[in-house]
């Protein structure tokens, strides 16, 4: 500013200078661009003629004017140049650009790229599953669990962990590292929900555990994580005798429940393995000997309270005996094997105990004869309560194990259960007897007393245990389970028996033949595992070819998931996968069971 004033030649130009000052004063001081000398404009060249035509004063004024003009241009340039190079301006610009990028990014999150909106979820496009089972994370979670359920109800004891990792009767042999970090024992729906919230936040996989009697590796900890054992939630919450329903927690055992209900003349029909509990029974969609008359678990659950993967609690219904209101989430959860939600409460339908029951046992010269008898009884619509088939080997086991006090003919045998009014039962028994004779039965006994009934029927219920009783040290058992349309049953049983004989393994056959469902029970040692697997595999394949299913009641678990696409087709499995993904996008709940959510490693899936 000072230098400018010194240069001022005379007051006459003051006015124009002021105008100039307004423009240049500030920039001049603030110019930082000292390293690069601004290019000065060259003086205007003028011809002599022009110069000569002026007076001295005119010349002086002219040159002052020129100088001012020059300076003005110079300042203009300075100003312009400053504008271009001012670092503060550049910084602002940079920040502005980055800001724009940020804002654009943020805006972009609203503009969802059109997803591939298909109605199926293919394995090929499946995303990676990311869990966090690192020790630090698990320990931190463990501390959270302690806060939720108290320190008495979280266990890291080796024995507890072993118990929740594998079972003797399961056909799946887990790898040594497939174990839970800890077992948590919640006491209420809220606690389960809290636990799931922690697991959801920390990405810890969870496996539900009730009775542990499932057979196909259902509760194997393929992703480590934690086991939630419902053992403490074992109460009957409300019995509505007049409404024929009961509200229970998941760890109620069906046998104990029936003992309770019997006092009121009621019962709950599904009867799977001894020791099974309502939670697991819903998990596998079980059935049992009563299914022929009463249907499976699907027909006997009115409502389910379930905790979903993120801890949300849903209740699928209240207590009406029938409903058409909305999607049937109850049915979707039954048989989902703990992969969609954890059952924490259920309302069960009850049946009135039949006034009178009876049991009859008939033996036949061959399986085929026995099966024919069954289709006759079923086709006639005789309302027997149950029809079960046991083959000669199985009868032998029962004799050898001494499971019952009586000695049985070691031939293919059918167990019938009758229910109804005394007259009705009598009539049914004689109808069945006549049919059995027609087919060529070797013997026909029926129970005369209640005790005798129980005795006869226990032989059927003890089948698996009696086979286990005759096994050699180190032997394992493989329970196969398929179902086909009833008319294909005799052929399938016969072929399977033949195949078992050829393989050289000891095996028996028992079946809920009224539904076209039967089991093969194979004994094998470690060396024979591949053989046993092959026998079961062939049986399953045959069942699928006969329009049947790979599992009638035991469920898919780990062992049968690669059979499913063959039974149902890839697209159907893709729809199932989509549903799993909708319920549990992080695959926390019993991951890897029922449907694969991740591409298998090469060689993992056996040839069909």
């Amino acid at each position, binding site marked *: 500013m000072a230098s400018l004033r010194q240069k001022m030649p005379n007051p006459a130009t003051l006015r124009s200078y002021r105008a100039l000052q307004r423009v240049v004063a500030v920039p001049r001081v603030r110019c930082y661009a000292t390293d690069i000398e601004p290019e000065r404009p060259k003086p205007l060249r003028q011809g002599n003629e022009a110069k000569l035509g002026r007076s001295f004063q005119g010349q002086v004024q002219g040159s002052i004017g020129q100088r001012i003009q020059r300076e003005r241009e110079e300042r203009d340039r300075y100003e312009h140049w400053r504008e271009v*190079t001012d670092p503060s*301006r550049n910084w602002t610009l940079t920040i*502005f*650009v980055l800001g724009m*990028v940020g804002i*654009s990014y*943020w*805006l*972009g*999150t609203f503009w969802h790229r059109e997803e591939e909106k298909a*109605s199926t979820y293919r394995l090929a496009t499946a995303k990676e599953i990311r869990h966090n089972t690192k020790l630090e994370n698990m320990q931190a979670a463990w501390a959270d669990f302690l806060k939720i359920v108290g320190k008495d109800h979280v266990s890291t004891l080796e024995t507890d962990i072993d118990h929740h990792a594998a079972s003797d009767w399961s056909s799946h042999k887990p790898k040594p590292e497939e174990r839970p970090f800890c077992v948590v024992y919640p006491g209420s729906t809220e606690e389960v929900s809290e636990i799931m919230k922690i697991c*959801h936040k920390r990405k810890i996989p969870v496996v539900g555990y009730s009775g542990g009697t499932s057979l196909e590796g259902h509760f194997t900890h393929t992703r480590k994580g934690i086991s939630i054992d419902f053992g403490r939630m074992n109460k009957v919450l409300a019995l*509505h*005798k*007049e*409404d024929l329903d009961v509200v229970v927690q998941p760890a109620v055992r069906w046998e104990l429940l029936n003992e309770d209900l019997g006092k009121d003349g009621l019962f709950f029909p599904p009867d799977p393995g001894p020791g099974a509990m309502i939670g697991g029974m819903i998990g*596998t969609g079980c*059935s049992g000997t009563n299914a022929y008359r009463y*249907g499976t678990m699907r027909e006997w659950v009115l409502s389910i309270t379930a905790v979903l*993967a*993120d801890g*949300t609690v849903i209740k699928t219904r*209240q*207590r*009406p*005996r*029938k*409903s*058409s*209101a*909305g*999607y*049937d989430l109850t*049915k*979707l959860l*039954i*048989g989902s094997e703990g992969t969609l939600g954890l059952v924490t409460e259920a309302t069960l339908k009850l049946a009135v105990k039949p006034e009178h029951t009876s049991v009859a046992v008939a033996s036949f010269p061959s399986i085929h004869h026995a099966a024919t008898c069954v*289709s006759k009884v079923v*086709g006639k*619509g005789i309302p027997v309560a149950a029809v079960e088939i046991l083959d000669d080997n199985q009868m032998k086991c029962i004799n050898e194990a001494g499971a019952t006090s009586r000695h049985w003919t070691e031939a293919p045998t059918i167990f019938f259960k009758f229910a109804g*009014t005394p007259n009705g039962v009598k009539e049914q028994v004689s*109808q069945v007897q006549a049919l059995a004779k027609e087919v060529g039965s070797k013997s026909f006994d029926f129970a005369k007393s209640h005790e005798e009934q129980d005795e006869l029927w226990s032989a059927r219920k003890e089948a698996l245990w009696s086979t286990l009783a005759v096994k050699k040290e180190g032997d394992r058992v493989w329970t196969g389970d398929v*179902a*086909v349309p009833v008319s294909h049953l005799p052929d399938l049983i016969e072929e399977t028996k033949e195949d078992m004989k050829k393989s050289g393994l000891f095996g028996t056959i028992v079946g809920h033949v009224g*539904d*076209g*469902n039967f089991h093969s029970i194979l004994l094998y040692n470690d060396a024979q595992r591949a053989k046993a697997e092959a026998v079961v595999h062939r049986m399953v394949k045959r069942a699928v070819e006969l*329009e049947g*299913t790979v599992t009638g009641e035991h469920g898919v678990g780990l062992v049968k998931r690669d*059979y*499913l696409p063959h*039974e*149902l087709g890839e697209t*159907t499995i*893709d*729809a199932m996968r989509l549903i799993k*993904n909708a*319920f549990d*996008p992080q695959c926390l709940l019993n991951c890897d069971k*029922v449907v694969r959510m991740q591409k298998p490693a090469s060689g993992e899936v056996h040839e069909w």
Partner: protein
Amino acid sequence: MRRFPQSIGLLTISRGQRAGPSRARRCYSTSPSTNANPGRTPNGFGVLGLVAATAAVTAVVTASIMSKRTEPLPKPVVENGGPKQRVGPRYADEKTTLKALEEIKSSIKGISVSLDPDDLESHGYAEWSGSNIPERPFAVVMPTTTEEVSTIAKICTKYKVPMIPFGAGSSVEGHFSAPFTGLSIDLSKMNNVVSLNADDMDVVVQPGVNWVNLNDQIKESGLFLPLDPSPTAHIGGMVATNCSGTNAMRYGTMKDWVVNVTVVLADGSVIKTRRRPRKTSAGYNLTGLFVGSEGTLGIITEVTLKLAVIPSSYGVATTTFPSVKDAAAAASKLIRRGIPLAALELMDDVQMQVINKTGGAGGRMWAEKATLFIKFSGSTESAVKDNMEQAQEISKAYGGADFEVAKSQEEMDSLWAARKQALWAMLALREEGTEIWSTDVAVPLSRMAEIIDYSKENSSKLGLFSSVLGHVGDGNFHQAVMYDPRDAKQTASVKKCVDDMVDMALEMDGTVSGEHGIGIGKKHCLEKELGSDTIAIMRSLKQTLDPHCLLNPGKIFEN
């Protein structure tokens, strides 16, 4: 700053070009190319702007991609109030729909398509429905095979045209109404019985088969399908509404009789949920999911049904009671005793009056009192007789009188027909312009007497003419209320009457729909019954299977 033009790339470039070339050298631009070719390139502003613009575009794109990729991370399974959606489902306009229709016509030779107003009316309105709306479907298409349905679905997905499956149109809650217009996909041309497997006691049928015809066709085999909704209903619609009827007490509802369904999903993929085993635990129970989904998850194009053996002997008895409450209480007791009844139906005094007015039933007039119709069935005569004796004993204890047993087959059939025709009788009786609102709630057995009594009282208090008839064997009953839709006061009364009944049923741990389903008329009730979390998981199922919300949109819950 006085000027701020750098914000947009384009503007910056033009500005840069105006500036002299020599200026370029002086700017702090990071772009080396400005030195290399000063004459051509825009100056620093331009480049910066360009970089900014590119970066911004890249950011938008990556963000949108990322936002998709990272979606499954701790995202709540259930989002209260429905998934975040900035725009609701957008559907094809008229022109696009027409284009879709043309494409359907050209891809499926000989497909029947109708734009006839009468057809549209019958596919969008029903006089027996309590939930009619003014919109109609744009057109009716009638495919004949699963492949054709799949083609239609693909085209509809391409053009975002709503698809509304249609069976016989006997549903009563506006199930097949077309709030967003679209195509009504009428499956009645797919009416073949594909195969009867008598030995396996099952039958494979197409969705357009009528259940009465089916039972006629397979009579020879000694088997029957025990569901009995409206005599006009088709299998597809019956599966989609999870119907039941008078036989449900003994035989259960539709979901207990479906072995598998073949379904065309929204995008045209075809799935078959099972083969033919009578029972299975293999994988998720998709069959159970599609039964009762009211055409919102997929279009059913083939069904395998279990069949029951026709009972070798059965009998029908009727008995009257002093009040509806007594009748309902007797019904509860009959069930509780475990007497194996085939059916147990209740009609109140008004309904009996209606029957008499329309010419009686079973060849005679009836006492105009609350009446129980009881069906017995068994494999033997003596079992049926035993059961009848027990039933008589129990009903007497509740004031039951005139326990009458039908003597001949004709009498039995005609008696039962009286029950089946009840709604038609009511419709026949109504005055010009009036309509019938048929409700449908179910409650636990022991509460039935109470709620029936309450509903009757409530409607008479409101001055409405109504009758009660119920499948009381499973705690389900209907109240048919007559009203004049032009009369605002009456309409409001009906609404209140129905709402009160629904609330009461829920208070009793019941359901807002025992057998008719939700459709469009009961959406608000469903939320009340199940709570928002449960609805949210249903909604997320719907959204997963039908992401564009094209299948029967606007039903069951808001999308």
